């Protein structure tokens, strides 16, 4: 079931909320059980057979967690169980996400011609619920998670607002909330805040992302035949589509959870405002970055640093670092983590390149911080301060844009073609370079250019950028109400305002909700359902 479908909005959500609070009034466990049931229904709506997969994964992981906890005092045994648990989870991911693509690729290259490998659909949310449970197993082994009973565990994994596409939750932040009695008593304030956040998220999806989709899809279809402005506009549309789609989804999840008195961590904190790549990774898909840092980066980086310390080698300091030290302590763990983050998205070589590109960016960013000129903090004029911010923002956005071309394109050749078009080397009959720019401006003022309608695209892009660069994000609008469990990194927006439970806000949100509903008809899937 989709958050942006009429079935969900009109029947599923009100029904599940109402029964949840009614049951919670009498029996906490009955309300928990109800939430588990509706979450399974929500999941199985796409394909009832998926129910078995989800249930199987939960039973497997719960059993592993239980056995690890029972054997914590016998570290060897608990480590073996943890290893088996990890292998089971990663094996499942490998089978559905990589194996068949890999075999298909061999087939294309002329190997294993006599076999027919069949096909498997990628079960929705498999990366997300598998990651959540892997984290649980590792933390149980580290003594950081305690299993609180089967029903609580199932609820933690299946709770429908996060099940399909995150945010990737940490049991430590969620389990205590499900254990509280207040969670099961209706709270009008939380319901109001939840609905308001949800309306904003839905607007991001249906009013902006879905409007950008046709242009973005078109640009990646015939990548070699675009002229320069068309290519730039199309690629920028995609960057905004992806952001508004996924951020919108995450906000809907945040709002839905809040209606059930549960707070989620934030997933997006105005990432397209970032002025460095390091900053970008701390604000884009925050819960994935946090997850990778915790379970992939930290253990390896700590191991490398300690090994150096024991050998008496210097640790990283700006004025003492050698190239070897930089490569070992920073580049190696970064490349390993970020490439895996890329490959997490799927089997294509383009995801590998996406990871490589970003790890390169991050290393350059760190090297610049360490070895580059130190900016004078005082006595800088307002203009220079603005200029300094502007070029850093521009460079960051450009780097992200290039990586997203690789991310979205069907093949690496497609990505390369599109980049060629962006520098005016398109092979199609549409003009590039200066002529393209002039024509696009003419088109904007109503002089028709036959092959491309810029006006709508430019207007939507413009509106998108106003939202991104000028207005506060949802975390900021709901800052007083504590929209999420995470702190906000973004600086205050140019125009700042706060949500308030009053008639004016009620009216504005009702209008926005109405527009949302009118546009919902498209019923389009979310981009991150693919991963």
């Amino acid at each position: 079931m989709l958050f942006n479908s009429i079935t969900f909005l009109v029947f599923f959500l009100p029904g599940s909320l109402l029964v949840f609070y009614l049951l919670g009034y009498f029996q906490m466990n009955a309300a928990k059980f109800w939430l588990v049931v509706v979450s399974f229904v929500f999941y199985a709506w796409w394909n009832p057979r998926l129910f078995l997969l989800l249930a199987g994964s939960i039973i497997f992981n719960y059993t592993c967690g239980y056995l690890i906890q029972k054997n914590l005092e016998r570290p060897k045994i608990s480590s073996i169980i943890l290893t088996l648990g990890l292998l089971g989870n990663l094996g499942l991911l490998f089978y559905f996400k990589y194996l068949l693509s890999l075999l298909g690729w061999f087939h294309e290259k002329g190997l294993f011609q006599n076999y027919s490998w069949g096909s498997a659909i990628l079960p929705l949310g498999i990366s997300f619920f598998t990651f959540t449970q892997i984290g649980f197993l590792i933390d149980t082994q580290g003594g950081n998670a305690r299993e609180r009973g089967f029903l609580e565990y199932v609820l933690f994994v299946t709770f429908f607002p996060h099940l399909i596409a995150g945010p990737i939750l940490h049991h430590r932040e969620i389990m205590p909330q499900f254990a509280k009695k207040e969670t099961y008593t209706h709270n009008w304030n939380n319901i109001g805040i939840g609905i308001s956040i949800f309306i904003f998220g839905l607007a991001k999806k249906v009013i902006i992302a879905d409007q950008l989709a046709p242009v973005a899809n078109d640009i990646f279809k015939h990548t070699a035949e675009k002229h320069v402005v068309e290519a730039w506009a199309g690629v920028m549309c995609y960057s905004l589509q992806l952001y508004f789609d996924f951020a919108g989804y995450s906000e809907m999840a945040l709002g839905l959870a809040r209606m059930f008195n549960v707070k989620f961590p934030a997933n997006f904190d105005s990432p397209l405002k970032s002025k460095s790549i390091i900053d970008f990774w701390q604000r884009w898909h925050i819960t994935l970055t946090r997850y990778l840092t915790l379970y992939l980066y930290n253990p390896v980086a700590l191991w490398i640093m300690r090994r150096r310390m024991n050998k008496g080698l210097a640790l990283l300091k700006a004025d003492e670092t050698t190239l070897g030290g930089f490569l070992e302590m920073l580049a190696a763990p970064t490349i390993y983590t970020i490439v895996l983050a890329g490959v997490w998205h799927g089997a294509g070589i383009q995801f590998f390149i996406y990871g490589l590109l970003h790890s390169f960016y991050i290393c350059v960013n760190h090297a610049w911080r360490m070895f580059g000129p130190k900016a004078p903090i005082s006595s800088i004029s307002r203009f220079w301060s603005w200029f300094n911010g502007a070029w850093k923002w521009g460079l960051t956005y450009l780097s992200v844009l290039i990586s997203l071309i690789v991310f979205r394109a069907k093949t690496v050749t497609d990505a390369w073609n599109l980049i060629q078009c962006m520098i005016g080397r398109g092979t199609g009959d549409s003009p590039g370079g200066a002529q393209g720019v002039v024509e696009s401006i003419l088109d904007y003022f109503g002089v028709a250019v036959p092959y491309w309608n810029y006006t709508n695209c430019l207007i939507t892009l413009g509106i998108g950028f106003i939202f991104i660069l000028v207005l506060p994000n949802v975390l900021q609008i709901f800052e007083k109400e504590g929209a999420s469990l995470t702190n906000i990194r973004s600086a205050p927006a140019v125009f700042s305002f706060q949500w308030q439970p009053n008639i004016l806000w009620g009216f504005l949100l009702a209008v926005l909700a109405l527009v949302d509903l009118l546009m919902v008809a498209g019923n389009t899937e979310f981009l991150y359902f693919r991963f």
Partner: protein
Amino acid sequence: MTQPEILERLRKIIGQVVGNDQIALNNGTTADKVPGWDSFNHINIIIGAEMEFGIRFNVAELESLKNVGDFVALIEQRLINKK
């Protein structure tokens, strides 16, 4: 060692790592409020603290730190266990 003493020594380490000697910290400070305290510098701070106090953390413990106060408490606990 008292908590304020630990906090002061930790403040110096963090200041060195993020390149701001004058940094002001209290128990409630969180990493996202300190410019430059990213995941990479986080590891530098952990290693710096291990060297400074002659202790060792395990990865799992570091996950549960919410703010500087938690970090100070963990160091204090480690120092007590060391004795």
